Each structure stands twice: as C-alpha cells, then as structure tokens.
C-alpha cells in the first residue's frame, strides 16, 4: 500500500517536473503579467474614476493605467495558453501519443496536472490577491473564505472550461477555433433570445448558480471522461450539450419558478415594512407606450411608497400584475423585474412598469379594470452606521472598506468625491451621505450654505466573492448634488462641488432581512392611451 502511494507520488512529481521543465516560457510570461498587475493595479486606486480622463488616445493607450486594464485580459489569455499546453503535453485526442502505451494512471496524470495548475495558476493568483489586498489596506487573512470562493469561481469560469476544451482538441490552434466557435454559438443564442419578445423576467435568484454549475460540472465531466477513458466522441457530445444549455438559457427564465419560493406571501415571518398605493400626485399619471420588443406595450403606474419603518430599506425587485375587467376577462402576468429603486423611511412617489402584449392591451383598454399588483421586495435592516470626519488621506470604514478622498481635475487640491475599495466582494448595501460645499477655500465670514448629497453603493445580497483577478474591488459611489450650474460669467458651465476636510460622512450599511411581497389594488382603473413615444424615448423625456 505504502509502496503504491510512493510510486504514485513519484509518478505525479515526475509528470509535474517534466511539464514545468517544458512549459517554463509560458509559466514565466504568466508570472510576469501577474507581477505587472501587482505593480500597476494599485495606481488606479489613487485616482479612481479619473483614470480614463485623457483627450489623447495615444497617451491613454500607452499609459500604465491602460496597460493595467489590459492585464485583466492578458492574464486570462496567458492561463489559456498555459492550460492548453499543459493538457496537450499528454494529448487526449489521437492514437499515436507516446504516453498512452506507458504506465500512466489517469488519476495520477490528472493529479499531476492539478498540481501544476495549483503551483502556477492558483498559487500566484492567491499571492497576487493577498499582495493587492495588503496594498489596499486590507488584512488578507481576514478574507480567506472569500479568496477561496474566488478561486472556485476561477475554476468554474476559467480553468475547467479551458481544460475541458483542451482535452477534446489536439493543439492550441484547434482549441482556439473550438473556443471561439463555442463562444460565438453561446453569444449568438443569447442575442437571439434577447431579440425575441418575452414577458417574463426575474431577478437572478438561481439562474446564475445553475449556469455556473452546468459549466463547472459539464467541464469536470468532460475532463474525467477524457482522462479516464479517452472517449473524444462522448466528450464532444457533452461539450455540445453544455454549450446548448448555456446558450439556450436566454430563451427561458429559469428564476421564474423560484420566485414564489424566494418571495413568499406576506406573513408573520415575512411582513412587508412598506405600503404601496396608487399615487394621486397630479405631476404623475399612468402612461402606455411601445416597448423595445416588438408587439409589447409597457405600462407605467405611479405608486406612492410609504410606511417604511426606520432603519429599513425596501427594494422592489419584481412585479406580477393581474387585470380583471367587468366582462370577466382576466389576465395574469408572469413576474417581471423592476428597476431596483431603493426606498428608505421617507414617503416617495415612484413608477412601477410592467409589460403586456399588444393584443392583451387592446382587450382591456376600453373599459375599467381591476388592477392588482404583487410586488416582490427585498427588505434590509441597518446593521451598522459609521460617521467619519472626512480626512485628507485614505481612511477605513469599518465593515465597509477603504476609502480615499478623490482629488480634483488636473490635480487641484480639492476633494470632489470619495472612492472606495472593498475586499473580495461587493460591500453590504450602504447609504452614504455627505455635505457638499461650493468652495472649501471661501472666507469663513460668509460661508455658502452646505448642500447634502447621498449615494448608494454595494449590494443587499452580495455573494461571498466577485469573480476578480485582484480581489480588490472598486466600489463606485455616485453622490447626488456633486455639481451645479454656474452663471458667474454669463456662460453656463458645470461647477464641481467640494467635500471639505472634516465634514461628516455617514455610511449606513444594510443586510438582507427578508424577502416578501406587498400588494396593491386599483379598482376602476383605465389603461392609459398608447403614447407614440417608445419606452426609451419616454424614459429620456
């Protein structure tokens, strides 16, 4: 037994050493690119949001920042080449390879390839992420689960699919062709699905996970079939099935059947902390207009949002509509996604939009109908609140991330925003409030009034990690009221407001408390006349 293990380990190490000796140029290129990422990526944090400001394409294209962005493409390409060459070292397609009549045991061969991938893909990947986390001010050890989850994402999205395609091809050129073919096929089907008119749409609850699992399991099965049995025909069939499943996912809404389970009717355990009613605001009225998809009408209903408890955020994610006419006609819509507005305890007037087929619209447009809307809501609860006097250098927001005052255009010594970094995953959904000033250097005796600004950042239900090469995510924060029009010289122009040092900046973070539903009924409702404007035109008006 022990002798067998020793022999096995000896074989694994022999194959590993052989591959490393042969593929050292590819290894060196991959490591060099990752070293470049470590050197260049932190530069982008220092002027986040302004990195792309250049009026010369030449200067932009040759700038370190552009190369830093390019590394996000070059590094996966280097892995592509490395993994292809690694698998093709012991080619699985064909019948003249040297190794197939040598005492290779497939689990050991696979183990040797895994060892190689661990040593020259995963380990550098983890090291790079730890270095970048450290450079960004995070403690890498505190994010080990997220880093491991990111490695799992890398495995499912990049490593296994590349290895699977390599296992059914005989060289890099063929692999590239197959990969391009699969990508074009999947993208073509997805595009076709997007063009077709469809009523149902749901927030992503399980579909992403299903697609990920299809990719992960499909690729792993192809690899095992090829390594264990070298059955290229079976592997090709499986590859086609995986591509078909992924490509066709756009034709159906995989999340639709899960909506009722994820958003149960309101009850004691999932009571909605919000009331929706038909808005009587005279500035808002229902509108019907053509949808982007052929044969579809979009109806916009003004809704008054109230009753939200303090320390609570409500996000309507999807809507389901029922229409009943006096002539006993009845129509039920499937779940349709809503724009994810976020509501706090103040009352709001909002607009909920849903789509229906033109023939349904024609059926109900002439008479009063009973309109009932079931709204799926994500409900969050405050988990922490930090108020920080804005420093002039990088600062930590506990539980949120690392933030930096964002400098002015052309290096002006003013702060025109805040850029933040989070580790491994999107931060918890956070409401950020600030106070803007027109000019922080104005004389103290006549300070202009401060203007409040706010912004949302993060996600209420972020996964453990985002697929990322760096593990340091830039959390985009668009604060309201960050600029104003100025008429000082009779020439209307934009004037950036400033965040003065020491002003209070409040970060209020929320965690998902429950998913539930809220109901809204409107009796005697008349569908609005069809506007000539399309949905896109209507939104821009």
């Amino acid at each position, binding site marked *: 037994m022990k002798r067998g293990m020793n022999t096995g380990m*000896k074989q694994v190490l*022999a194959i590993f050493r*052989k591959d490393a000796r042969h593929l050292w140029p590819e290894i060196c290129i991959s490591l060099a690119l990752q070293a470049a990422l470590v050197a260049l990526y932190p530069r982008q944090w220092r002027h986040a949001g302004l990195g792309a400001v250049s009026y010369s394409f030449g200067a932009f294209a040759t700038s370190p920042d552009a190369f830093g962005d390019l590394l996000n493409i070059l590094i996966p390409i280097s892995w592509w080449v490395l993994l292809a060459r690694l698998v093709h070292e012991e080619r699985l397609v064909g019948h003249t390879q040297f190794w*197939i009549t040598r005492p290779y*045991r497939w689990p050991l061969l696979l183990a040797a390839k895994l060892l190689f991938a661990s040593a020259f893909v995963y380990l550098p990947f983890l090291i790079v992420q730890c270095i970048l986390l450290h450079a960004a001010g995070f403690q890498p050890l505190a994010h080990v689960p997220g880093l491991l989850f990111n490695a799992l994402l890398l495995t499912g999205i990049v490593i296994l699919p590349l290895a699977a395609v390599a296992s059914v091809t005989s060289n890099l050129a063929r692999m590239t062709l197959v990969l391009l073919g699969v990508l074009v096929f999947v993208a073509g089907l997805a595009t076709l699905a997007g063009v077709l008119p469809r009523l149902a749409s749901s927030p992503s609850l399980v579909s992403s996970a299903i697609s990920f699992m299809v990719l992960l399991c499909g690729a792993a099965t192809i690899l095992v079939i090829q390594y264990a049995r070298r059955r290229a025909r079976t592997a090709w069939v499986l590859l086609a099935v995986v591509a078909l499943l992924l490509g066709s996912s756009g034709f159906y809404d995989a999340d639709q059947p899960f909506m009722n389970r994820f958003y149960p009717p309101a009850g004691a355990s999932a009571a909605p902390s919000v009331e929706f009613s038909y808005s009587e605001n005279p500035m808002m009225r229902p509108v019907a207009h053509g949808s982007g998809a052929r044969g579809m009408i979009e109806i916009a209903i003004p809704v008054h949002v109230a009753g939200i408890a303090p320390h609570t955020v409500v996000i309507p994610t999807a809507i389901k509509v029922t229409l009943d006419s006096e002539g006993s006609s009845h129509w039920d819509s499937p779940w349709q996604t809503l724009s994810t507005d976020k509501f706090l305890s103040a009352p709001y007037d909002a607009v909920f939009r849903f789509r229906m087929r033109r023939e349904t619209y024609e059926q109900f447009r002439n008479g009063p109908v009973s309109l009932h809307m079931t709204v799926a809501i994500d409900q969050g609860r405050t988990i922490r609140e930090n108020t920080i006097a804005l420093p002039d250098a990088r600062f930590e927001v506990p539980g949120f991330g690392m933030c930096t005052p964002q400098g002015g255009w052309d290096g002006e010594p003013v702060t025109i925003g805040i850029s933040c970094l989070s580790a491994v995953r999107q931060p918890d959904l956070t409401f950020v409030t600030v106070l803007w000033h027109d000019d922080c250097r104005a004389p103290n005796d006549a300070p202009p009034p401060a203007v409040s600004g706010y912004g949302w950042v993060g996600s209420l239900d972020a996964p453990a990690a985002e697929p990322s090469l760096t593990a340091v995510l830039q959390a985009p924060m668009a604060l309201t009221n960050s600029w104003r029009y100025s008429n000082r010289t009779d020439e209307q122009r934009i004037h950036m407001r400033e965040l003065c040092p020491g002003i209070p900046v409040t970060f209020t973070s929320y965690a998902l408390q429950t998913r539930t539903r809220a109901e809204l009924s409107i009796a005697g409702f008349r569908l609005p006349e069809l506007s000539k404007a399309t949905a896109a035109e209507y939104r821009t008006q």
Partner: protein
Amino acid sequence: MNAVFRTQSLTKKFGRTVALAGIDVEVPEGAIYALVGANGAGKTTLIKVLMNIFQPTSGLATVLGIDSRHIAGRHFERIGYVSENQEMPEWMTLRQLLDYYRNLYPAWDTALEQQLVRQFDLPLNRKLKHMSRGMKMKAAFASSLPYRPALIVLDEPFSGLDPLVRDELIEVLLDRAPETTIFLSSHDLAEIEAFSSHVGYLENGRLLFSEEMTSLAARFREITITLAEPLAQQFSPPAHWLQCESVDRVLRFVDSGYQEAASREELAAVFPGARDIAIQPMSLRAIFLAVAKAGRTQPTSTSVAAETREVQI
C-alpha cells in the same frame, strides 16, 4: 504453454470499412511472433486493438490475461510498445527521457538501460527531435526494454531503417527473447524470417494462417513432376495443392499440406507413371506468394480471401 495474448472473432470496423474481420489468433509465451501482410492489411489496427488504443467492434482479445479493453496504466509496466509512427516528447534529450521513464516503472533496470545506450551508441544529451530516424527507433527500444517487459509489441519497427540499424535492433531483441514474448508486425518478410518463431499472415483484415515457422516451412513444398504423358484435361488436384501449372509433361504445384512419407505415397498413387518427382523446400517469401496468389481457403488454417495481394519482398 500459456498464451500471452489471444483473440476470438475479433472485428474492428471504421464506419463501413472492415479493418479486422473476425480474427482468431493465439500467441504462446516466449514466442517471437511476426504478423505479416501488405500495407493496409490490418496489422497496425490489430496491434492498436490489443493495446486498447482502439476498441474492438466485436469479439474479444486478451493480453497477458487481461481483456484488451481494460489495458491501461499499470498494465503497461509489463508491456513494451514501439511503433514506427509513435510520437515521442521530442523536446527532451534522451537522458531526460530515460530519467523521466525511470520514475514510471518500478522494475526499471538502470544497468540494462546503460547497457542498451552503450550497445546502440546513443547520444544521451541530444534532443530527440535532432535524432535521425534510426536513432529515434533505437531510443524507443532503449526506453522500452529496461523494465524487462513480459510482452514486447513492435509495430513495423524496422520500416525505413538501414540494414545496419535493423541488425542492431534485432540483435538486442534476440538478447531479450529468452525472458519475454515478442510480437511484431512487418510487411517485409525477409527481415523477420531469420528470427521469428511464429508467423501470421493478415490480408484485408483476415488472418490467412498463423502457426509456428518450422511447421509452416515443413508443410510447404514446391513439387515438380515429370510425367510420361501430358496431363489429362479433366485432372482436378486436391485442395492443398496450390498454383497447379502444367506445361507439356511437366506439372508444378505447391503442396501446402506436405508430410514426408504420406505425401510421397500420395504422389506415387496419383502419378503412377511419373518419370521424376522433385520436392523442394520453400522460402518464406515463396510460401507467402503461393498463399497470396492461390486466393482460396487454406486447408489447415483459416480461409484465404478471394482477392489476393502481392506481398512486398
């Protein structure tokens, strides 16, 4: 004697093309078995089925007692396989190749490896891609023999090699012969005649015969009979007389079932007034040509295909 490998009704089809049509063959332990046949006869296909590189369409093959469909991994610790069209890791030097293989075989004999390298006069530090064809074949031998395989399978090992290299390889093979079984394919009869103990002849996917070389040589004779009178028009020879030709009073044929005493008696009985009966042993080349041209069922072995092909001599 145990059979090192055995096939039963082994068939392999590629689409509609029948590459092997119900092969039954048995190779005894310790044999040097030469499988001969023209290019495209199915030799390489048979070997690849035995090595589990191809799956049989039907029938069964066992190698060292193992179903050929399960031959993999550890089983190759006992099988040495060398093929003329086998790829090698050409970026390696021979030293790197041998160092690498040493890790794969528990029974690797380093002394034998060094002996083979010396015997073949191989340059250890030269990359395989910079070696000549003959040198590559020597390197393949040097990397397939040091673990003392119980079965050595060689697919056209001498094809395209100069006689010197061929003799060197055969010499090394013969050195190994006492402790192993050798199965090799060739379309060149001359190169295998001298050292094979058994021979099989494959044509169009059919095995025309398979037997020991000595018995094959013993049962084939070229017979020339000088008759007193020209042969009667109605003469019908026995089935085991191949290629009967009669010119005037001389009759020539190949007896494929020759037995010293019985055959002489049979000849005397059939041709009682014969003036002379000349019985000549045949070379392997002549035997194969006779069988190939006869184009009919071979009485003591398997059937002969209707379509015959020239064997390259």
